[in-house]
């Protein structure tokens, strides 16, 4: 596991992205964790401007970005200061000595130079003046000093490529394409990478570094690519709309970490996608509802604070019973919180966060590639049940990339929407007996002219109604419709382990990887523990209660203060334990392993 850390202007995310691609090409399995500051260009050299990219790869299945890096690349003192504590004892730390100037040390808050005292004693430091070597490598291209130093990340990447025996071709091709208009930049970056690689080969490096060979993981055969959560979500929405036979109208307002979904979809206009950057969060959801009203699939997207602003409009979509998909890329809160840090603390907001009794369906994706399937599922539920569906993902999933075995879209089950066209006996709240979904009658259909709105309507005519008995009936039917979805979703499966036993660790969303690894390790040690991961948050799968009852203990691990645990307790009256972490960082495998041990000891 390698972590690249440097200034937010040092190109660490780019370096990590290239290493990810190359690692995937070498048929290792991998998982990544980009961790960057909220400031676009935080002051150079400061600890709060440090940007990091972590990649875990190997010959076995990789499900998390890893706990403790084996290798840390620190491009400046601040990066060292922020990241050193995570490095495995005895781990390798590659340092750019050229950046350890007095001024940079001071900015990072080091009183003494850590290269000269005991700071690095527990680790294996490799001190290289990367700044100087990079400048030398790109001298012939006549770049400014500033531009030349920007090639430092590629020099380092070249060295890491040498360490793991990686091929440089993919990155070379990528650089040539990226800098097609400025060939001198392409050449100098390639030269820097080659120089870093050559340095590994020729310099007298400590014997133990270099020449790592990581075997090919036992990966299912097929066609693969790397994918981030935002990409998989965008493609899943496009695929879902196509399977439903609808055009897609995506309306959103920029917010970290949800904006990448808007960016991805904005490039997919050829797939009958209209994207709309609205004036605010409220306008975005309202435009999406308007688009659904007019017969396309309306989708909006945001993060926690934006979802809060959209809630009144979601209530209208519940009341007029129109399909709508709301993607929420959760982030640390409350309020603005930590926009670039991950959290799962919007479960309550999604399930219960509206005025009145206003149920919606809620689904959650567990990983980047899983976003594709969950997006299609959200479209299916929204159109079949004429309801808003909130899709929960988070900042970690949105940005992290993982290899994805590409499905064959031709094998997907079509789920075509049938609009109402028959005026005979029509009123807008005529329900399907089985799903309880109302008829979808779109403007432009002759003979079905009708009015809908947020006022309560009569069950039998769809007209405005203040009748007390009717309001009770409508409230009930809205709830029954959503609860009925439980009959139309797969029963809850057990991810790992038996369907009964001493302990079940229950998770949802992006905690999938660490829970799975922790349960696997505990099981290797002989522990009687299983992993259950919930995709359908609301309504819950019909068999979940019975499944949980078949365990002596249930532990819910989540990155909030116990929201799913509370939900499950309220629904099932079971003594459910909670493992919560709200630090803006994903769970470590070891944290969950320790919790499993504690639960089994007591």
């Amino acid at each position, binding site marked *: 596991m390698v972590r690249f850390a440097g200034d937010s202007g040092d190109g660490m995310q780019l370096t990590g992205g290239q290493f990810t*691609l190359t690692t*995937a*090409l070498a*048929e290792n399995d991998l998982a990544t964790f980009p961790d960057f500051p909220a400031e676009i260009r935080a002051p150079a050299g400061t600890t709060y401007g440090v940007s990091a990219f972590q990649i875990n790869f190997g010959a076995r299945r990789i499900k998390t970005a890893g706990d403790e890096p084996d290798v840390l690349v620190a491009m400046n003192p601040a990066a060292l200061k922020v990241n050193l504590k995570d490095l495995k004892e005895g781990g390798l730390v590659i340092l750019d000595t050229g950046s350890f100037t007095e001024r940079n040390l001071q900015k990072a808050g080091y009183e003494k130079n850590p290269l000269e005292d005991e700071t690095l004693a527990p680790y294996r430091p490799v001190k290289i003046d990367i700044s100087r070597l990079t400048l030398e490598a790109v001298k012939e291209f006549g770049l400014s000093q500033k531009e030349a130093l920007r090639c430092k990340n590629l020099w380092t990447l070249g060295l890491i490529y040498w360490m793991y025996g990686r091929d440089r071709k993919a990155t070379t091709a990528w650089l040539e394409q990226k800098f097609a208009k400025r060939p001198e930049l392409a050449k100098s970056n390639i030269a820097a990478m080659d120089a870093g690689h050559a340095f590994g080969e020729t310099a007298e490096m400590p014997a133990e570094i270099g020449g790592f060979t990581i075997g090919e993981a036992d*990966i299912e055969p*097929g*066609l*693969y*690519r*790397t994918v981030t959560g935002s990409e998989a979500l965008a*493609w899943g929405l*496009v*695929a879902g709309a*196509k399977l439903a036979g609808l055009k897609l*109208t995506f*309306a959103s307002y920029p917010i970290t970490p949800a904006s990448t979904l808007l960016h991805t979809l904005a490039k997919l*206009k*050829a*797939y*009958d*996608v*209209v994207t*709309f950057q*609205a*004036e*605010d969060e*409220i*306008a975005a959801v*309202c*435009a*999406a*509802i*308007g*688009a659904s*009203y*007019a*017969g*396309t699939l*309306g989708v909006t997207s945001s993060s926690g604070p934006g979802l809060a602003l959209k809630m*009144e*409009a979601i209530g209208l979509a519940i009341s007029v019973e129109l399909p709508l998909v709301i993607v929420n890329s959760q982030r640390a809160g409350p309020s603005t919180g930590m926009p670039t840090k991950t959290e799962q603390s919007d479960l309550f907001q999604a399930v219960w966060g509206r005025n009145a009794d206003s149920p919606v369906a809620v689904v959650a994706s567990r990983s980047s590639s899983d976003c594709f399937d969950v997006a299609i599922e959200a479209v299916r539920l929204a159109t079949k049940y004429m309801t808003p569906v909130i899709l929960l993902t988070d900042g970690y999933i949105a940005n992290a990339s993982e290899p994805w075995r*590409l499905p*064959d*879209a*031709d094998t997907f089950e079509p789920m075509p929407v049938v609009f109402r066209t028959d005026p005979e006996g029509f009123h807008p709240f005529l329900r399907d007996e089985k799903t309880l979904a109302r008829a979808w009658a*779109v*403007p*432009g*259909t*002759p*003979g079905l*002219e*009708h*009015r*809908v*709105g*947020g*006022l309560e309507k009569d069950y039998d005519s769809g*007209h*405005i109604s203040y009748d007390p008995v009717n309001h009770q009936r409508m409230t009930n039917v809205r709830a029954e419709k959503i609860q009925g979805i439980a009959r139309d979703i797969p029963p809850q499966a057990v991810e790992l382990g038996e369907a009964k036993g001493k302990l079940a660790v229950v998770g949802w969303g992006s905690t999938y990887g660490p829970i799975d690894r922790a349960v696997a390790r505990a099981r290797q040690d002989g522990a009687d523990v299983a992993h259950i991961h919930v995709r359908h948050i609301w309504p819950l799968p019909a068999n979940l209660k019975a499944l949980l009852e078949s365990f002596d203990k249930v532990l819910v691990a989540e990155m909030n203060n116990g929201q799913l645990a509370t939900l499950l307790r309220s629904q099932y009256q079971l003594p459910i334990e909670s493992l919560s972490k709200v630090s803006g960082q994903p769970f470590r495998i070891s944290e969950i392993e320790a919790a499993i041990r504690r639960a089994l000891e007591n």
Partner: protein
Amino acid sequence: MNVTTPLEKLTPKDFTSDQEVRWCPGCGDYAILKAVQKTMPELGLKRENIVFVSGIGCSSRFPYYMETYGFHTIHGRAPAFATGVKLANPELSVWVVTGDGDGLSIGGNHLLHILRRNVDVQILLFNNEIYGLTKGQYSPTSRIGTRSPSTPGGSIDNPLSPTEFALGAGARFVARGIDTQQKHLPDLFLRAHAHKGASFIEIFQNCIVYNDAVFEDFTAKPVADERQIHVEHGKPLRFGKDGQHGLRLKPQSLALEVVTVGENGVTEADLLVHDETSRPLANLLAAMQPPDFPMAIGILYCNPTESYTEKVQRQVEDAKAKTKAAPGDINALLRSGHTWEVTD
């Protein structure tokens, strides 16, 4: 021999829904509803292709009374819903009905942006200078000193001018009408419908319960001729019982002045001629307030350009024309980046 049956012409009654109208007796909204229903058959559209979208407030009950498609949404957000409707189906004729509270207070942001973007919809803002549905609080267009339950000592904040707001937001069609002028309103609605892009009409509407007679200073019969100027493109800006008054530009200060033709050597040649494509003139006309100036009624500004909706469609069509993949080929989409094969 082919026989083509001409489309049967619809009547105002065809646009009247079966819902009982529930505005207060004597409300100006009745007159506007009647004028809209009178206009609809003249549009030459089928009922199913017309959508009325509203927010919350007295005016926003409007869609329930129209036998078209209708969407009564949430407070202030009708422009955003209407934008979504047009994005989904640009062929629909979309009408937004809003009020001074709905459109300019809670929904000011959305009104600003739908006008700026030039989404192809018609916006009818019923201005009664009061909150009716919530029982009479002052609104953002209420004049200073308006006494209401929330301002017992009189309101102290400056009112907003809807037409000046619309012009400031970049609207390309800005007009004014009065609820009682049944002959004039349908003309405005027809012109608004013909205009490609966002068209904005402020309609002075009397609230008989909470703000009765607030527009009497320029609508009352004895003063109407002297306090209203009906502007028409290409015609001199004249008003008054016998058209004796006119508007002249003071070149030194770029301000308007009221003059009387035949007095102090003023002839019709001195008067401004209305040019509805002139934004500076529209701004001057919109800013006029009685009693010093007449209230400008009619189409203050009409200067069309390509609408947002047309541009959105064009980008989609361009993208489709450029793409090499078959339309909707999801496999091609998923495989559009770097892929690799894993074998046994």
